[in-house]
């Protein structure tokens, strides 16, 4: 009888073991939607360039399959083990970035990829994943020390080193900002006060405004854009894209045209005209504008709602994780996805200057896809450890 009751309890406990199907459904939905949009936005260009309309679609599909494999593997991976790899994750990120210097593959004027066994890898994406693991572990190790300016400063410097490396080695400012942003979000959640974040945020905004003002002042002086260099021109193009319509402002302007011309319900799936050679690499960072053009405001808001649901699921997992490390991991992932989605849409709608930020789950890109799915895998792993009876 007792054994029987015990067995029943065990059974019930097993059944109550949490698995976040909601999250999986949302992710699968996003992946399928992304695949469709990648095909829609890239087929014209792929056909022109490679003679095969499904070129990007297939590569993306392979990335997704690999990513899903990694996600499933990580779901059943005891994430607690990662806490012991805090230092290793940091070193992994640093080494990966350094590998670019000898093995880097240059494209579009920036070394961002390395080839390993015939597979191209974007170290910055793996660095983001590694930094989430590192930060979660580091915050755990810091304990209350994180609340002090000193502890806070130490980790911030460590993160800043990696960010700086990403920025200068791979000339990828956006990834550097994202890594820094992830760190700030994780700090924000794990420390009780608001003051320093307000100071920090205000300082950053002030610095950004100052930079913009300096660039604008210089540009209006002598020859435009040259003082700020590559990024200066971008900022000028951001302020007035139509004045730089044939140069730096081209991509932004074309994206705006796409969004504006989509209207409420869009032109219909596959009907985008802007993808026909006007938006460069429409399947990458600017894919959201094609979504807006084809599916309209309605489609865009639906997609954003999907991301909000995803983030909500992650919040719930973080709230209910069986340990703090798990929570912090999920918060990191949540921060990562939130930052990327917000910045991507902000770029497409020309709220911030144009910088290469992809839309998670949707944009074309193997490394980003695999890393993001790996992060989801970690979150699912955290979710699996949730004990239902605690509710």
């Amino acid at each position, binding site marked *: 009888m007792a054994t029987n009751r015990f067995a029943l309890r065990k059974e019930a406990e097993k059944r109550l073991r949490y698995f976040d199907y909601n999250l999986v459904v949302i992710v699968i939905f996003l992946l399928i939607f992304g695949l469709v949009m990648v095909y829609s936005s890239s087929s014209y260009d792929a056909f022109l360039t490679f003679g095969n309309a499904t070129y990007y679609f297939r590569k993306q599909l392979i990335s997704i399959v690999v990513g899903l494999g990694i996600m499933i593997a990580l779901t059943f991976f005891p994430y*607690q083990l990662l*806490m012991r790899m805090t230092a290793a994750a940091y070193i992994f990120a640093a080494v990966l970035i350094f590998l670019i210097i000898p093995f880097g593959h240059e494209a579009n004027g920036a070394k961002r990829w390395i080839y390993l066994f015939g597979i191209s890898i974007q170290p910055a994406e793996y660095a983001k994943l590694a930094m989430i693991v590192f930060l979660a572990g580091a915050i*755990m*190790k*810091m*304990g*209350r*020390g994180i609340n002090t300016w000193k*502890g806070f400063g130490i980790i911030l410097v460590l993160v800043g080193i990696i960010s700086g490396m990403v920025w200068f080695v791979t000339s990828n400012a956006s990834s550097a900002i994202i890594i820094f942003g992830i760190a700030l*979000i994780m700090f*924000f*959640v*794990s*420390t*009780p006060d608001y003051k320093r974040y307000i100071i920090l945020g205000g300082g950053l905004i002030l610095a950004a405004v100052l930079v913009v003002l300096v660039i604008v002042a210089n540009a209006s002086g002598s020859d435009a854009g040259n003082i700020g260099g590559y990024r200066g021109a971008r900022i000028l193009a951001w302020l007035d894209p139509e004045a730089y319509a044939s140069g730096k402002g081209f991509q932004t302007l074309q994206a*705006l*045209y*796409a*969004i*504006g*011309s*989509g*209207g*409420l319900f869009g*032109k219909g799936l596959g*009907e985008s*005209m*802007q993808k026909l050679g*006007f938006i460069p690499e429409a399947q990458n960072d600017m894919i959201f504008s094609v979504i*807006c053009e084809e599916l*309209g*405001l309605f489609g*865009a*808001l639906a997609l*954003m709602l999907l*991301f*909000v649901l995803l*983030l*909500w699921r992650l*919040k719930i997992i*973080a*709230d*209910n*994780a*069986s*340990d*703090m*490390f798990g*929570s912090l991991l999920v*918060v990191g992932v*949540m*921060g990562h996805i*939130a930052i990327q*989605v*917000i910045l991507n*849409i*902000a770029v497409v*709608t020309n*709220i911030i200057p144009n910088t290469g930020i992809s839309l998670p789950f949707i944009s074309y890109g193997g490394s980003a896809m695999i890393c993001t799915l790996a992060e989801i895998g970690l979150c699912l792993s955290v979710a699996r450890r949730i004990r239902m009876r605690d509710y």
Partner: protein
Amino acid sequence: MASLYNDGKLKRFTPKMRKKLLVLFIIILAAFVGLGIRLYMIARNNGEEYARQVLSQQEYDSVTIPYRRGDIYDCNGMILASSNKVYNVILDCSLLLTDDAYLEPTLNALNSVFKIDTSEVRQYITANPSSKYKVLAKRVSYEDMLAFEDLKKAEETGSNIKGVWFEDEYVRQYPNSTLGCDIIGFTSGDNIGNFGLEQYYNSVLSGTNGREYGYLNEDSDLERTVIPAEDGYSIYSTIDINIQSTVEKYLAEFNEEYKNNVNIANGAENIGCIIMEVDTGNVLAMAQYPVYDLNNPRDTSALIGARQVDIKGVKTTGKPIELTSLVQNNETIDPDAVADISGTSDEAENADENGDGEEEDAENSENTTNPASGEPQMFTESLYVTEESLALMDDDTLYQNLNSLWKNFCINTTYEPGSVAKPFTVAAALDSGSITGDEYYNCEGFLEVGDHKIKCHNTYGDGYLSVAQCVERSCNVGLMHIAFACGKETFLKYQHAFGFGLKTNIDLAGESRTASLVYTPSSMRQTDLATNSFGQGFNVTMIQMISGFCSLVNGGNFYEPHMVSKIVTSDGSTIENIEPRVLKQTVSRTTSDKIKEYCNLVVTGEYGTGKTARPAGYMIGGKTGTAETLPRGNGEYVVSFMGYAPADDPEIAIYVVVDRPNVGTWGAQADAKYATRIVRSILTEVLPYLHIYMTEPLSDKEIAELEEKNIEDTHGYNSDISDEQSESDENAGDADTSESQETSGDENTTGETEEEIPENDEPWKEFAIDPNTGYAIDPDTGAYVDPVTGATIGLDSDLPDTGVPVTADESVSAVGDAPDVTQ
């Protein structure tokens, strides 16, 4: 600080952290909301503008798709004019410059296929790197276009050939170049027809350009629409290309024979010929000489030998002109050559004295100063176009000369018809009942009308002549009597009925108005009626004459002459059949039969003036004409023959006019034989072609001639030869004999009329025969006299110089609505 880990118990998320996570989530949510608002603002504020922008970026500029101008066919469907697709080579520099690898292969391909100078293209590309539309070559052929496309498809370099595309265009082509130039006409660059059928049927031949364009539908979606071009309709002419080419061959042959004969000029100022079906009004051939190449109508070499006109389009008179400083450099102009033609009278005297035209006499008579002295050089204006006079022409004068070349002589030029009008006078008198046909008139060689003594061409008089003989011998006196019997009201009423003074409304551009060139009852005096009776004093066009003449010989039905029988769409379905239209009944069938009878005599009769027009194996009827041009006494004539075949049942009518043959003047050589010989040559080939079978016996000479021309003897095919016709065959045979003998007439054939002609009334039969020309020479005047009829050759009449209603011109030239083409 390491306690969290070292405790061994994993601390869970604290409520504070949850709170902060919630704050974070709210911040994220706020950001999303902000983004959503931003999206909405873009769609709301800039939506339409951006949508337009998107559409305007699409290259949907409207493109004109050219229509194809309709073809012109002859009655058998042979192409007279057609439009063929050609291609313009367009370069898109900006596309070419997108990659360095494109430039060289593209330029090489352009050079190898179209022979385009690469350095020029390079220069253009450097100067206009953003140009998207530069025409590199115009009107390249389909083959060349294909060759270029093949290069583009080639394995190695083909993919680097960029930025070149082709634009369609149609070019008008005339496969027969000069054939039928005056009836067909040509088109200027913008597909506008000039002259002839091209102008008259311009709106039929023209289609509507198509367009390819994009527009926004109500959902602001781009719709691409192609409105295809509507091709023009094609027309089938009544012209038969074979007959037309035969006619043109003999006109050109005549020109070859008499070119530079007396004057350094064409064989005649103009030679025109019309062949028409008498029972439909269908024009089978309409030709003139000189001709021009329809594919290159502005080629000035076709002008050489033509009568020159000045800047106002009036014929040059040979007045002295002063060379401007522009052409004072005597290296460019040979003064001898410039003035190679002197005034007509000088030339005429030369011709008279020397018999054959001397060409070099003119040069000494020029009023030139020494070119080296620097004084103005005086030259005599050239009467005929030469290479030298071409060099002296300014653009406007040249254009006037071209314009006179392009004009259709057969419908545009008015002239006094001369004796070919006599059948009309007789028909008017017969049909109105003014005469019965049984009258006899005494010809004493002249008739005094008012103050004027109007001579007959046989100044010795023919004595008493029947109406038939008046026509046969072309007696002016008899005709004057007949016209007087009519009276001017009736005469003019019939002139109107025959269409003189009215346009025929033939479907060709440029027919002249002649309303002011004929008399009205109030303006006509007795002398005018007298001269009108034999075709002087009023002006006509060739098409008027032959249209009226057809009605005389077909039983009185006046058909509207026309050139086009059918209008079809570009895919060949018929839009309109143009049926023959009878406009009126001019004379009764009885009158028509009588006129035919008289006109047959012109060819068959012993004294007939048109014997030389009869082709081997056929019997035809007709009337000759020799009209003196204005001013009277200048010795220039328009000779003509208007006839029909076969004689008993006419199917076709033919009219040949030789305007001022290049044979000198007082030599009296300009007689109707110049026209009748052309008619004979043409009919010899055309009648068998039209499946009209031979009815007349052939002499050995004629058999040899037919063999030479490779024409079959078609006697055997005609199973319907009746006894009656056989009889006429015999008669013809007799006439033949008399003609070949060329001696005094065979008395027996002329029958009873013979008795009324006293022997001593034919004094010319005793005149000495000139060995060169075969004519008798009148010892009193020195003029040539026809040994058979006694007619003074070339002196059809000695007309009073007054009372001619020619209002505008002194001489034969175009009047009325001649087309005007801008250069």
